[in-house]
C-alpha cells in the first residue's frame, strides 16, 4: 500500500473555512481520508465541504463553532470519535508594534493561535477520542521559531507556545504511538497575507518576497507536508517544528 495514503483514516481539521486549512482538507480527501472540517464561518465552511473529494467509502462531516468558545468546543467534540489525525490550522494575526499591545489583543491572539487549540486537544485526549498511532499537526510559523518579524510579537509568542506544547505532548503521547508535530511555514499566499498587504503596503511585501529564493508559498505546498505528517510515512517523526519556507532560512 502507498505509505502516503490516508485511506481509512478519520481526520479532524480546524480552520478549514479558508487558507491553508481549506487546502489541507481538500488534499487529505484526495489522499483518501474521511474528513471532519471545523470553522467559524458557515458559508465558507460549506464551500470547503463542497471541495472535498468523495471516493467510494469516503464519508465527510462538518461542524461550525468557534475554537475560542470552550463550551461549544466540548459540545462538538462529544459528537465525534475515533480520530486518526487532527490538524489545527485555525489562526489570526495582528500587525502592530509591541508597545501598543492591550490585554484584550493579547488574549485574542493567544486564544486564536494557541489556547483554543490546546484546550480542544486536551478535551480530545481526555475523552479518548484519538486513536492509537494517530498524528496531531499544529501550525507554528518561521515567525516565533527561527525569526522575529517586526510588528508580529503576539503572533510569534503564540507560535512559540505551540512549539513548546508540541515537544511535551510528543513525549507524553508516545505511549500510544501518537505523534505530535508542528509545521512552521514562511509566507504563504492566503487571506492572512492579504491582510499583511493592506497594512504594510504591497511594495514592502514585494521587497520581502525577494528574501525567498523560491518565492512565497502556495497553500498546497504546505498541505503536502501536512499529508505526509498525517500518513504512515512519518511514523518515526515526532516532537518537531518543521520549517518549510522556500529557502528563506538559508538566504542570509
Amino acid at each position, binding site marked *: 500500500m502507498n505509505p502516503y495514503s490516508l485511506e481509512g483514516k478519520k481526520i479532524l481539521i480546524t480552520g478549514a473555512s479558508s487558507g491553508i486549512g481549506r487546502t489541507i482538507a481538500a488534499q487529505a480527501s484526495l489522499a483518501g481520508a474521511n474528513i471532519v472540517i471545523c470553522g467559524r464561518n458557515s458559508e465558507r465552511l460549506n464551500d470547503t465541504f463542497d471541495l472535498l473529494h468523495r471516493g467510494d467509502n469516503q464519508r465527510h462531516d462538518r461542524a461550525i463553532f468557534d475554537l475560542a468558545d470552550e463550551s461549544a468546543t466540548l459540545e462538538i467534540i462529544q459528537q465525534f470519535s475515533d480520530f486518526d489525525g487532527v490538524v489545527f490550522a485555525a489562526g489570526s494575526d495582528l500587525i502592530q508594534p509591541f508597545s501598543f499591545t492591550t490585554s484584550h489583543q493579547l488574549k485574542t491572539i493567544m486564544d486564536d493561535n494557541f489556547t483554543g487549540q490546546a484546550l480542544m486537544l486536551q478535551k480530545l485526549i481526555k475523552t479518548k477520542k484519538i486513536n492509537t498511532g494517530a498524528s496531531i499537526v499544529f501550525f507554528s510559523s518561521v515567525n516565533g521559531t527561527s525569526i522575529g518579524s*517586526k*510588528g508580529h510579537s503576539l503572533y510569534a509568542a503564540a507560535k512559540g507556545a505551540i512549539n513548546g506544547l508540541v515537544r511535551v505532548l510528543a513525549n507524553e503521547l508516545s505511549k500510544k504511538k501518537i505523534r505530535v508535530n508542528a509545521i512552521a511555514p514562511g509566507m504563504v499566499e492566503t487571506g492572512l497575507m492579504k491582510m499583511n498587504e493592506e497594512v504594510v503596503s*504591497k511594495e514592502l511585501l514585494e521587497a520581502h518576497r525577494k528574501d525567498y529564493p523560491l518565492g512565497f508559498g502556495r497553500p498546497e505546498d504546505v498541505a503536502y507536508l501536512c499529508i505526509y505528517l498525517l500518513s504512515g510515512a512519518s511514523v518515526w517523526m515526532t516532537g518537531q517544528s518543521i520549517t518549510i519556507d522556500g529557502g528563506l532560512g538559508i538566504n542570509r
Partner: protein
Amino acid sequence: MNIEEFIKHFAEQFDEINAADVLSTTKFKELDGWDSLVAISLIAMVDAEYGVKLTGDEIRNAQYVSELFEIVKSKN
C-alpha cells in the same frame, strides 16, 4: 482634531524626534529613524487615537505630514 495634536502623536512614534522638529510641510520619510516599524506604529497610533484605519498604501503614497493629517481627518 487639529494638526498640532496630530503632530505630537506622530512624533511620539519616533525615538529621537520631538514634536517641535516636525512641521506640516515636513517630508516624513526623510526624518531620522523612519522605517517600516515606525510606519506600523503610525497605523496603530491613528487607530488608537482617532479610530481610523490608515493603510500601508496611503502612507506609501503620502509625502508630507499634512497629507497624513488630511487622510486621517477625512476618515475621522
